[in-house]
C-alpha cells in the first residue's frame, strides 16, 4: 500500500485513491477531425514506461480530487504530485531514469 501525497489532504494510504492511468493525454478538442489511427492513439496507446511515469490519481475516498503524480515504475516511489492542469514538472530525482515522454 503506497503512501500518496494528495495535493490537498497530504500523505494518505493508497486505498483511499483510485488510479487513473497515464496523465497528460488530453481529450482532443474536435474528435471528429481525427483519423481512426489518431483516435486509436488517444484511446489506447500508452507510454507504459519503465522509469518515471506521469499518471493520474483521484483521492476518491478523500477530497475526491483528481491530480497527477510522477512515479518511478521500477521502485514505485513517487517523486512528486501536482494538481490537474499543471504541467509535468521537471524530474527532480536524477537517480530515477526518465524514459517517459
Amino acid at each position, binding site marked *: 500500500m503506497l503512501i500518496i501525497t494528495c495535493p490537498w489532504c497530504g500523505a494518505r494510504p*493508497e486505498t483511499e485513491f*483510485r488510479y487513473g492511468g497515464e496523465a497528460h493525454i488530453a481529450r482532443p478538442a474536435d474528435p471528429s477531425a481525427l483519423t*481512426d489511427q489518431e483516435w486509436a492513439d488517444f484511446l489506447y*496507446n500508452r*507510454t*507504459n*514506461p*519503465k522509469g518515471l511515469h506521469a499518471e493520474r490519481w483521484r483521492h476518491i475516498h478523500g477530497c475526491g480530487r483528481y491530480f497527477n503524480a510522477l512515479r518511478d515504475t521500477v521502485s514505485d516511489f513517487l517523486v512528486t504530485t501536482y494538481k490537474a492542469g499543471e504541467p509535468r514538472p521537471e524530474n527532480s530525482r536524477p537517480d530515477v531514469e526518465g*524514459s517517459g515522454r
Partner: protein
Amino acid sequence: MQKFSGFELFRRALGGHKSWQPQWRNPEPKAEYDVVIVGAGGHGLACAYYLAKEHGITNVAVIERGWLGGGNTGRNTTIVRSNYLFDESAALYEHAVKLWEGLSQDLNYNVMYSARGVLMLAHNHHDEISFKRHVHANRLNGVDNEWLNAEQVKEFCPPLNIKSMRYPIIGGALQRRGGTARHDAVAWGFARAADSRGVDIIQNCEVKGIRRGPDGAVEGVETSRGFIRAKKVGVSAAGHTSVVMAMAGLRMPLESYPLQALVSEPVKPAFPTVVMSNTIHAYISQSDKGEMVIGAGTDAYTSYSQRGALHIAAHTLDAICELVPQFRRLRMLRNWGGIVDVTPDRSPIIAKTPVPGLYVNCGWGTGGFKATPGSGHVFAHTIARDAPHAINAPFTLERFRDGFLIDEAAAAAVAH
C-alpha cells in the same frame, strides 16, 4: 538430444547420474541469425521450437535478459483452459490445449499436464447467464465446458463452501480438459527441445536497441553482448514489451501491471481441481507438491516492480477463506509478483507490426501461461511466413484502430 525415460533414469542411476549432459547449451551469440526472438519465456522458447520443428528455421537465437523461464512463465499459477466465449479466443486457446495434451511426449519432457478440471464459480444470476452463454458457445465450437448446479459443484469439489457465505455459489462452469501444468518444465522442455534442433538460447543478454535500416525494416538487435544481425525479430517480452517496442519507435496499446501469486505450505491432497471465482477474485489449485497455489489480483497501477501490495494479497485470501473456510489455518509460504502486459480488450496481440521484419506476441495479461504452446506455434507461423496463421489473424494491432475488439472481459464483467 539425450532421451528422457524411466529406463534412462534407471540406467544412469547405476552410474551415479554422472552421465547426464546439459539440457541446453550456453552458447556465445553468433553475428547473425535468421530470426532473433526477444524473451526466453515459455512463449518465446515455444516459438523458437516450432520455427525449427515446423518451418525448418533453425538459425534462431532466443535472447534473454535474465535466465530462461524466469519471467511470468516461472511466476504464474499454471492454469490451462480454453473455455473462452468468442470464436477467435476459443480457437486460439483450444489450439493450445490440444498441444498441451501431447506436449510431454512431443518434447520428451514431463510437463505434468494434469487435466484436473477448471471450475469457474457462479455467485449470482449474471454469472449464471454469462457462464451458460460460454457453455453453449463452447459446445458449438467443439470446446468442452459444462454447467454444474450448486450441488454438482459441491460434488465435484467437496472442500468448497457453497452456502454459508456472503455470495453463495449457485453453480459453475466446468471444463474437464482444463487443468494445470508444471511451469518450469514447460520452459525447460521447450528450451531443451529447441536447443537440440540448433536454436541458440542466450541468457544474460539484454536488448538495448532495435536497429532499423533506411527502408525502416529491422536489421537486428543491439544487446549487452553486442549487435546481433537478423532480418526478423520477434518480440515476446511479456511485461517489458512496451519497453522493447519503444526501441523500434512503436507505441503500444499496453499497460504493465503487477500481478501476485502465493502458495501455502504443502499439505496432503485436499483440493481436487482448479477453482476460479471471478466474482470474488480468487483462483486456487493444489500443486503436486501439496502447496495450495493461489492467484491474486493485479495492483491498480502500472509498475515494473515485480511485487504487489499487501492489501491485494489480503483480499485474495479473504475470498479463499470464504470459499474454503477450513483453509483459514493454512499458512502462506511464499508470495511473489510478476509483471503482466494488458491490452485494452484483454486479448493478446500476435501479429506483424508496422515495422517490416518486426513481430510481436504480447498482451496476455493474467492468462498467458495456458496459451504457451499454441501462442508459440502461431507466432512461429507468423514469423516464418510473414503472415498470420488463421488462428491468430484476428489478434492484430490494427483491431484497436478499426474497432474489431475481442473483448472477453467486457462480455463477462458488466453487472446490472
